[in-house]
């Protein structure tokens, strides 16, 4: 569906969204030696130490599910055909929290919180591919 809401691409986030379109997972990382943390969502500065020197780097693409919801009523009609689906919060192995979706329904909701996941890429709109997550 092409009328899904696309993210607004700007100078802060362009590298992240462009990388998604190459099926690459690219996040910011703080270059301050005492910090060095990965950052998501994209920022102009490090939210952990306040430093202004960030570089783009590849995290592992691994994480675990912090919480989830089976969405029946999406916020936009362009998603209605796909509902219900699993919207998830993922704690990436490198620390940041990322919202995404499971690429396919789990067999059971038991043990879903804390379950390991890895990033996969999926079509969103003609303009944009998105990182989804798969149970591993």
């Amino acid at each position, binding site marked *: 569906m092409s009328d899904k809401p696309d993210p607004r691409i700007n100078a802060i986030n362009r590298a992240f969204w462009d990388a998604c379109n190459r099926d690459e997972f690219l996040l910011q990382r703080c270059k301050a030696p005492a910090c060095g943390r990965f950052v998501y969502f994209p920022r102009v500065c490090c939210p952990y130490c306040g430093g202004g020197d960030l570089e783009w780097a590849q995290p592992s693409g691994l994480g675990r599910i912090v919480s989830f*919801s089976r969405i029946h009523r999406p916020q936009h009609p362009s998603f209605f055909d796909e509902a219900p689906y699993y919207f998830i919060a993922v704690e990436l192995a490198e620390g940041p929290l990322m919202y995404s979706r499971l690429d396919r329904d789990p067999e059971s909701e038991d043990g879903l919180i804390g379950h390991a996941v890895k990033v996969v890429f999926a079509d969103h709109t003609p303009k944009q591919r998105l990182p989804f997550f798969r149970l591993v």
Partner: protein
Amino acid sequence: MPTGAYDGVYIVGAGQTPYVKRTEKPVQRLIWEASDLALASAGLGWRDVDGLGITCFTLAPDNVTTMAEHMGLECRWLSQGLYGGASGIIGMMEAARAIQAGDAEVAVIVAADAFDVSSHMSMSRNPGQHDYMGPWGYGAANGVFALHTRLYMERYGATREDFGRFCIALRENALLNPNALFDTPLTMEDYIDARPIAEPIHLFDCVHPCCGADAVVLASEAVAARLDVPKVRMLGGGAIHNYPAHDIYAMSAGWETYRDRMFAQAGRGPGDMDFVQLYDDYPVMSFIQLEGLGFAEMGGAPALIRENDCTVRGTLPLNTGGGQLSAGQAGASGGMIGVYEAVVQLRGEAGARQVKDCEHGVVTGYGAVSYGRGPSASACILARA
């Protein structure tokens, strides 16, 4: 003993429009109506107003300054709430400081919106929601708070029935409120069998977007002294934003960081409160507020609700007008409905839903939902003057 943090300031009036599903009235008119009712209840007129604070998600292209112009007000103090449902209380705290400093004598604090489900679903334009949750079909606020609800249930063993008890008590209160949107009882069966929206959130965990407005009037001691109306004082208050900065799922939005100071300002504790007006955008956030304010330990709200009657006749009256869950959420008015209700209760003007002999109450605000949560959390303690 109270510290006198808000000495010299009185809440002298409160007004609320009926909450309705649809209206032909523009939000500017709703703002005027609630403010006009509040001024009338204070025995004041529009020419007395020299301070105005507005929160309204659908006010653009108007803003608080053009609204002062629109209504012909000459104001020395203006403020526009940018903290979502935390804005009403923060606006009152700011207005009180302005009045204490002599920068204003009479301030109207008002919130209004004309909302329906689609405006509720589409209003979230900030980066956190629009760009980093929206593309994945997050379900707007329902999806945001489904994740908190899921984790609260997982962490503390809370059940849907626990949230249901809260919603049912609020509905009982709403049935006594002529301004409330809902006028039929809610049973546990209705609650449990409701259709899923964003599991574990079902229909009656969600507020009903609607149209309405709430306002209060704050005045200096000199002005208040000549008004022959019941008055209310703010004894304590606080706010915090983006807390804790790096833990969205802390099951806290920071009320515990200032509750001791706030209760010390008031010289009162949670046990002295005759009612609590919680920001009930979702039951889980109300539970987290009860815990953050010290009415229960973390994870203790389900037991607190089980052990108390939370209706206006009960041992722990909550959201005595029905709250947003049963009176309705008129957008930004969600941050003022509890303030209005508290002032009316403390003035003894709550009619059939009057909490008997109430003298003190606490009100919370919460909102500005962005990346995964509402970053803004406020609260205040009000008392019969």
